């Protein structure tokens, strides 16, 4: 009885819980957002620049992210023992780098002609480049003598700073830290200092760091390189199509001059928002912000907008990849940008589909048992949005069946109104999350930064009512509009033959240790062979041998025959 009562009393909850943000502007146009909270003696502070990889162009992709790394390298007084010498060495380095860039241009031409095969191979660089590189290394050694390593970080850490970090997205770049509440002025000094006059020391070593980051995140993970590629397939004309970390060709080509120009264009006060959450007094904080950040000068030109829009998709796009993964299905649909009126119904739909009691799990995991896991999410980015659903295929089931089942679940959103109770369940969770998001300073800061960086912090407080207002009819209308075949891209991942799963080939179990090793080698070579005719030739040979040997044939021959048949089958599919 109680339980039933509870059910109907629920809408009492639907009083929106606001994030108590106070908005101010400095004289130079910089926005300041303050949230006073006095639970603990600390302040989580940060700032967001409304610039991300979307603002790049071919040739300098990755610069927004590289720039984020460079913002930790110091200022004229922080990070060096002798600023004059520091500047001189950096200027010398640029001169050598210009010559190296000219050489790199030649090497690209050589690569186009096939005279060199790998631009990254140190042994294939030209003599001249290597000589210049030696010269450059000497300048790096000289520079080390005047650099004070990571001083920016050291000052913060010795003053109790923690959680210092930064990140770059398609749309924005954010920098943040938590400091003891008596160190607010240090925060102001440090952050305004690096915005006022950042010095890009160790620029070229940092590019190598970014390359290692790319290897770590994208290249050496089972799906990294494929999701990068799929993302580029999904976005056709929009700059969202290149990876935030940048194309490998571009990262090493970015020059300090490119970074300087990028800074002058985008790191201007009218394009920045300062955010403080925690134990401070707003009036004091504002005076301090004006004193420190007030020093930043407005940009010379209006911050440019991104003009290129995504072309409406003309036909379904499909992507098939063999990877070191269990088979899975991943579907993207184009949806509108941050703040668009349809994004609320899309958010509600993503929650109807995902989670423990979501429709995808109920249909695909529990009922038809086609999948072992499913998911759905959506986001409106600054210029455009996406909706994503997918799942891991259950052993022995067909990815095509999983894909079809997802489409069927999505289709139902168009044809049948969502029952009231199901809709209420989703809305209850949106409402409760308005409280859960308010538990401590750092997460509050991160939400404000993210929302402000994507579009406007106000969305944090206005989206609640809009989500609660979504009706079953809205859902049907919006589902019909976006969930069309022409508007989607589908990725199907299957396991790369010869990886994972242990002895997937039951025949291997009968082999001795040595024969097993031989068989594995053979299977892997067969699986990388793409020439069907050659495989067929080998299959014929094996079959003849097997026939000759009869019952005396060593078991490895059957394994080889099976591997050849399987691979031929795959290639002819």
């Amino acid at each position, binding site marked *: 009885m109680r339980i039933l009562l*509870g059910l109907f009393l629920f809408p009492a909850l639907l009083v929106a819980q606001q994030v108590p943000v106070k908005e101010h502007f400095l004289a130079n146009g910089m926005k300041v957002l303050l949230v006073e909270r006095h639970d*603990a*003696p600390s302040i989580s502070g940060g700032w967001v620049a409304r610039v991300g990889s979307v603002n790049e162009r071919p040739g300098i992709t990755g610069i927004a992210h590289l720039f984020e790394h460079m913002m930790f390298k110091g200022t004229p007084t*922080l990070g060096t023992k002798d600023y004059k010498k520091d500047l001189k060495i950096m200027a010398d380095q640029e001169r050598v780098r210009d010559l190296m860039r000219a050489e790199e241009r030649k090497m690209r031409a050589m690569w186009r002609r096939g005279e060199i095969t790998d631009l990254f191979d140190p042994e294939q660089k030209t003599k001249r480049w290597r000589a210049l590189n030696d010269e450059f290394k000497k300048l790096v050694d000289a520079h080390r003598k005047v650099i004070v390593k990571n001083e920016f970080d050291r000052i913060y850490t010795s003053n109790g700073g923690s959680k210092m970090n930064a990140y770059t997205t398609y749309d924005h770049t954010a920098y943040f830290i938590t400091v003891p509440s008596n160190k607010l*002025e*240090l925060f102001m*000094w440090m952050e305004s200092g690096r915005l006022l006059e950042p010095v890009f020391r160790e620029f070229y*070593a940092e590019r190598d760091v970014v390359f290692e980051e790319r290897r770590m995140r994208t290249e050496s993970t089972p799906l990294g390189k494929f999701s990068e590629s799929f993302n580029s397939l999904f976005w056709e004309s929009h700059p969202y199509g290149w990876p935030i970390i940048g194309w490998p060709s571009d990262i090493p080509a970015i020059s300090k001059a490119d970074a300087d120009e990028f800074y002058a264009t985008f790191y201007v006060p009218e394009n920045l928002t300062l955010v403080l959450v925690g134990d401070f007094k707003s009036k004091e904080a504002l005076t301090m912000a004006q004193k420190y950040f007030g020093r930043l000068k407005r940009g010379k030109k209006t911050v440019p907008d991104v003009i290129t829009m995504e072309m409406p998709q003309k036909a379904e796009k499909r992507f098939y990849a063999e990877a070191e993964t269990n088979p899975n299905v991943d579907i993207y649909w184009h949806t509108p940008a941050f703040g668009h009126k349809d994004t609320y119904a899309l958010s509600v739909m993503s929650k109807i589909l995902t989670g423990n009691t979501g429709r995808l799990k109920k249909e695909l995991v529990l009922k038809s048992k086609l999948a072992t896991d499913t998911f759905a999410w959506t986001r409106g980015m600054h210029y455009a949005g996406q909706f994503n659903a997918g799942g891991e295929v259950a052993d022995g089931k067909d990815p095509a069946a999983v894909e079809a089942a997802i489409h069927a679940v999505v289709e139902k959103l168009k044809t049948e109104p969502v029952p009231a109770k199901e809709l209420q369940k989703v809305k209850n969770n949106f409402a409760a999350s308005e*409280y859960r998001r308010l538990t401590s300073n750092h997460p509050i800061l991160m939400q404000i930064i993210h929302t402000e960086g994507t579009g406007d912090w106000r969305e944090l407080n206005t989206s609640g009512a809009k989500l609660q207002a979504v009706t079953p009819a809205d859902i049907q209308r919006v589902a019909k509009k976006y969930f069309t075949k022409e508007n989607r891209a589908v990725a199907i991942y299957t396991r790369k033959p010869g990886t994972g799963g242990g002895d997937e080939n039951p025949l291997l179990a009968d082999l001795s240790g040595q024969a097993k090793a031989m068989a594995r080698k053979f299977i892997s070579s067969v699986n990388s062979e793409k020439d069907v005719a050659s495989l067929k030739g080998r299959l014929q040979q094996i079959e003849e041998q097997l026939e000759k040997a009869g019952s005396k044939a060593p078991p490895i021959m059957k394994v080889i025959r099976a591997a050849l048949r399987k691979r031929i089958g795959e290639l002819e599919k």
Partner: protein
Amino acid sequence: MKKIVLSLTIALGFIVSAAEIPDRPEKLTFPKLKYEPPSGAEFRVQLKSGPVAFVVPNRELPLVSVSIRVRTGQYNEPKGKAGVAGMTGFLLGKGGTKTRTAEELEERLAFLAAGLSSSVGDTSGSVGVNTLSKDLDEGLVILREVLTAPRFQKSRFDLYKQKQLQGMKQRNDDSKNIERRELLRLAYGPKFFRNVIPTKASVESITVEDLRAFHQAWFHPDNFVVAVSGDFDRKTMVVKLEKLFAKWPFTGKAAVPVPTNKRFAKPGVYIVDKDVNQGRVDIMLPGIHRDHPDFYAVQVMNNILGGGGFTSRITNRVRSDEGLAYSAYSYMPGGTYYPLLFVAGYQSKSATVQYAAQIVLEEMRRITMEVVMDKEMVTAKSSYIQTFPETFETKGKVAATFADEEFTGRGARNPAHFKEFRAKFAAVTKADVQRVAKKYLTPDKVVILIVGNKDVILKGHPDHPVNLDSLAPGGLKDVPLRDPFTMQPLK
């Protein structure tokens, strides 16, 4: 006119502030910050029904969190049943109860926007509920049912098994997973309980009866420590908790100590061949227990060496100087039940894996030979002392932190732990740092694990030739990939 006035103010403002803003941050002065940590005794309640609870009211938001830690873990798995602890933990909350199917339970929780979590890890179990305060009573009814009368519904049991078996196939896909697995094997030996991981055979052998046995043995109030925080009145909450744990339907077993029979591998360079373009490296040594008198000096030493992010030596040299890695670090946490490890690690392109290892080992040697700098001491100590208030940043953290002290027994052994925390760090000297560096960073015991493309890694970089034998005594040892279903070497 308005415009002119505005720009004048800005110009004036600029001159004034520029005069006031010092050129170096050391010239700033800060108000004093006084901070005293809360005392656990203030929140501790010995419930008549068995458990100790930490009850921390917080009226700010209409939310309540009740979290129960359970004295059990992977170390209690019967032989041949690896996986039963994790499975019991998962299905307690996801397998329904006596009165509700898994589906009904999930549906109700979702409608209430309540969270129910349950798990069993290597040395503890945890079950908790997080509800809006208006739903607290219903949340507690559900929690009691989950704890006393779980259903372990067959369909969810089968699904979990299927996912486990399917998940095993991915064990060799990501070099990171291979690294984690082999690191633990080298660090503690294949027979240590943490390394007895589920296999196809062990998972297939587990029955619902096994789950029931595991659950009834360990999930009873004498094995619970409770952390509660949120929107309630303390007295009322204590009454509710007594009711939650009263008249338990089964008695179970007394908690048993966590085993400590670990064995550190013989020195050497252990390499797993995996075709990726970046090698993952861990340079390992035996570590310490958190109650050891060296603990504080060790933390400062490790922070200076590689634990302090950008202010530490390994990060500075491997990342900032040489650009050899995105992430280069060391860690040496204190173990709760047994000494853990020292690990210095990084990920670098195959060609520079050896060169970076040489640099890390150089830094490990240097900190044993040279006294560290004052500046480094200040930074390292501050990173513990000045950030200390964050330990109790939220009421939820207050409850969880004290519950953890109670659970691990340190609260009883050393009730002054938090009161003395900052003074203990402040007392560490440069000589202490060097002493513990010499004591723990012993080159003759070094074990290096590398996961990556063996041929390219061993070929090295033309500009930085490294003699692999110089890196660790014991030489190069191949570690095979393991059959993901049996964990037996694939050869």
